[in-house]
């Protein structure tokens, strides 16, 4: 059992790991494109949390790299969500659905 007190690294890594696995599970199990997108966002935020935690508990006390990386991740995740939702909207306008099974025309 890891020590999950707030001033130790383990708890943060545990939460990040759970978020990441939840994201992977959502990507594998969801048939709705928005569900998959939520899974991707969970994975990205797991990474952001991990960056911040590793930066906070770095051997050289104040290492700004991790915190900076976390901010970049938040910004890019927002951009990614915007582009993805715009594309889902384009799909919805033509298929009237964003179900990944119902929107399949491309195949060999």
């Amino acid at each position: 059992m890891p020590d999950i007190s707030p001033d130790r690294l383990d708890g943060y890594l545990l939460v990040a790991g759970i978020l990441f696995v939840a994201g992977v599970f959502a990507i594998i199990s969801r048939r709705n494109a928005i569900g998959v997108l939520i899974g991707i966002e969970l994975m990205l935020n797991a990474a952001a949390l991990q960056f911040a935690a590793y930066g906070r508990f770095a051997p050289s006390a104040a290492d700004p790299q991790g915190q900076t990386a976390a901010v970049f991740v938040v910004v890019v995740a927002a951009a990614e969500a915007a582009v993805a939702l715009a594309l889902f909207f384009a799909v919805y306008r033509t298929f009237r659905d964003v179900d990944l099974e119902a929107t399949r025309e491309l195949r060999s």
Partner: protein
Amino acid sequence: MIAFAEAFPLALVRPEAALTGGLLAILASDLSPGANARRLGPVLGIVSCAVAMWLACAAPVGNVGTMLAIDGVTTLARLLILPLTAFLLLGGMGERRHGNDTGAWSASVVAVGLGALIAAAAANFVALWLGLELVALAGYTLVAFRGGDRRSAEAGMKFVLFGGAVSAVMLFGISHVYGATGHLDFVGIGAAFASGAPVLAGFALLLAGAGIAYKLTLAPFHFFAPDVYQGSPAIAVATVSTLPKIAAAAALVRILMTAVPPSLLAPVTLGGAIAVLAAVSMLLASFTALVQRDAKRIVAFSGIGHGAAVVLAIGCLPSREAAAAAGFYLLTYVGSNAGALLCLSVLERARGSTSLADLAGSWRSQPWVSSLLCLFLLSLAGVPPLAGFLGKWGVLQQALAAGMAPGGSSAMVVAVLLFLLATAVSAWSYLLVVRAVVFAEPAAANERTQRREPVALATRVVLGVSTVATFGFGLWLDGLVALARML
């Protein structure tokens, strides 16, 4: 000001700055109410590429903090990316002349080029990830650009979901690399490995490599390519199948040279493992291509094979010639690939789709474009006087040298044999397209519905340049040596 100039030497990144300026100018011109100003987009993009190219030729060498490394690899990548971006813009001018969304299109193409420049120069995992994300986000919009088209929209959705997932995995890996080594820059990570980093760091590095493998469409990250390529406009495929590969190859070279110790996967040699992975991916692609019934899908599987060939050359590092062979291979690949896709774009507009059934007999109605398509495909297959042959020859030579050298990896020799087999098999799939275009009888219904439209001047220029490149690089026998001297 002096402190800023020391911390951020702008002189090193002038080409990137020029392209950023071009991107902003395109976005600004797109806001203008006049229709003429909005049509300026591709011209602004081409001009900024030309300026960036001029600056790249005289660019000094050095490091921008620990974020970017401007060295021989970066210079070579710039000299590949910038002209290619300009030609893709020119091709877009020819192929999308009726659209009123030229500004958005050219901004996206320039953004892909800019992201590729940043990723190719990155010496830090965060910079690399940001560069690849810029490539990806702009690429998603290009793929889904044909508004109201079901297949284009579906291709865009698949691309964004697959790309987003891989990018998240890569980032998760990067965060663990940072946690295990305390560094995000390649040199620092390399030093941490040299002084004994935990096992976790090596595993995390492999996760981080997933993003690069995906950009090079290496198996098992290739599933998106056939569907995405088939669904999107051919000129968008020409962008997303070439620029990301150059960026990822440059990044992979830099990571292997600085961050990763050759003993990462001990007792297996890293180069050998990479080469075998590449050869398997190549073989998979060449056999799957045989059963495809759409020319763009065949080009997609060929792209997987060509990406793998580049990785095979990179597996022969740290010799300078190996990196040059990868660069030369990309040089020969992008010219022929972009040319082939441009031909397919013209034929697609005239015949409705690029399925082999619709392309049947196109040689009779469009002899020039069809003949050029066959020429580019033969170059991709590696037929001797054309560029593709010299590219393959260079990779083969490097891989054999690496495998036969005393203490060399026997995995490399196996990879070479698989490479030869895959080349022979994939040549057959190109011939399927050639057979359909030249020899097959056109379907009667198809001839009636055909739309005749003269080929635009911009398209002709790009096709001409691709043809010259396909012949010229095929005759540039000491090209590999010249590139090696640059690195």
